[in-house]
């Protein structure tokens, strides 16, 4: 009884309310989308009536800034949740998983062949690095960056594994075939030597890697590459959401 009442009331109230908001949103979009208004005098919070609470487009995946356009290779899987902004290059066979943010607005970010940046990572690049070297973030080939990591202006040489929830600060260098344990924090400008296992906060030497473990590192990257192939084949080259948008606009009486 209560549920049916709720359902009926929702059906009566929602269309008019939401369609009003949506109509106003579309109208604002049709005129000029900007939050430009007369300058406000005091330091109080003055909200703008033009700010859209809901954008049917969602968040764009690739955000060009000025002349920089993020480049994604044709067989790289980039999840729909991801934000690539500025100078980002995702090379062949690599994958960027859900929720990651690769923000190349201050400096370049490169994700090498068959590497992967897993869920919810944030990869950023500062203007300058404390080492004085170029402060771009370079993730070389066959690197696995574990989930929820934060990479800032670091260089990761080929065939490494960065554990989950690790933090690599400006100017750090992870040399080839090394593994960083989960949760490790690499201070600015530190170097993780080749073929070793480091971990902790701040990252300390734990032990050297055996040869077998070293051979496993690129295999992990290739395995994730295969997995990303499954995800890649789920999506069509162009989405069919435009049909829904056209239907929606027609139902609100807006020109398609």
């Amino acid at each position, binding site marked *: 009884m209560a549920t049916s009442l709720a359902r009926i009331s929702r059906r009566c109230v929602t269309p008019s309310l939401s369609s009003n908001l949506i109509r106003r949103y579309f109208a604002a979009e049709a005129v000029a989308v900007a939050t430009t208004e007369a300058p*406000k005098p005091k330091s109080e919070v003055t909200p703008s009536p033009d700010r859209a609470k809901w954008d049917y487009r969602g968040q764009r995946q690739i955000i060009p800034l000025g002349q920089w356009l993020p480049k994604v290779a044709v067989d790289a899987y980039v999840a729909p949740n991801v934000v690539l902004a500025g100078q980002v290059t995702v090379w062949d066979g690599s994958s960027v998983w859900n929720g990651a943010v690769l923000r190349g607005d*201050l400096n370049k970010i490169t994700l090498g062949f068959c590497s992967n940046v897993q869920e919810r990572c944030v990869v950023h690049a500062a203007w300058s690095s404390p080492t004085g070297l170029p402060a771009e973030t370079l993730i070389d080939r066959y690197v696995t960056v574990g989930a929820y990591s934060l990479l800032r202006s670091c260089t990761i040489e080929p065939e490494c594994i960065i554990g989950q929830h690790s933090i690599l600060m400006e100017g750090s260098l992870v040399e080839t075939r090394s593994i960083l344990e989960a949760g490790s924090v690499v201070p600015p400008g530190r170097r993780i030597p080749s073929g070793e296992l480091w971990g902790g906060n701040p990252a300390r030497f734990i032990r050297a890697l055996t040869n077998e473990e070293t051979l496993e590192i690129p295999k992990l990257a290739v395995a994730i590459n295969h997995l990303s192939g499954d995800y890649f084949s789920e999506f069509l080259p162009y989405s069919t959401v435009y049909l829904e948008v056209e239907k929606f606009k027609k139902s609100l009486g807006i020109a398609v």
Partner: protein
Amino acid sequence: MGTLGRAIYTVGNWIRGSGQALDRFGSLLQGSYRLEEHLSRHQTLMNVFDKSPLVDKDVFVAPSASVIGDVQIGKGSSIWYGCVLRGDVNNISVGSGTNIQDNSLVHVAQTNLGGKVLPTTIGDKVTVGHSAVIHGCTVEDEAFVGMGATLLDGVVVEKNAMVAAGSLVKENTRIPSGEVWGGNPAKFMRKLTDKEIAYISKSAENYINLAHIHSAENSKSFDEIEVERALRKKYARKDEDYDSMLGIVRETPAELILPENVLPEKTTTRVPTTHY
């Protein structure tokens, strides 16, 4: 010419129609396993019943961020991609010129073990690094929360203090002014030099400028995006060296120029960071 144009348009419509019919047939073949894409229902600013966010018009809120409930954001601040500011059980107030960087979480505590009710207050010109977790804290003006830091209930970060990256600051810790605390659990590490304190407020200003270009880019309409894409494609082949050899001066289209204050300065000052 009119009838030819109309004929081509009609043929185009037929092809699109048959394409859509093919798409429907393919979905039928895929059956229940097909991927159905819908409009994004993500709400950037969302009410929780009667609590609605109050966001100044100068603020950049990334489309993938979520500002929910009783949240107040002052002028010039920026909420970057993937953040969640959840003011559902209590109040969050973010000052002006503050930046809350990507994938961070700001939440409030209704009750905690001590029984206190803790709204979250973040002051002016604060830099909250990527993926930080701020839960029921007070962060005063011009403080710096490093990336990946977790600040638990009741933490007070005083003015000009710095929380190092990756640290876990336990409940009710007070981080005094001008000091760097870090580690898990967070302990005093060292004092900040004056240059570093000046850098904190400079970094907040840098982010205000960055937020302007991101905000402009994210609020573009479809037509503007397409125009710029065409411009970019056209401009991509220009090579300045070659042009100068030929004696040609080509103009970058206005839409593709970034404002000066975002590009790196040509100085040789080192960027102070948290040293261990």
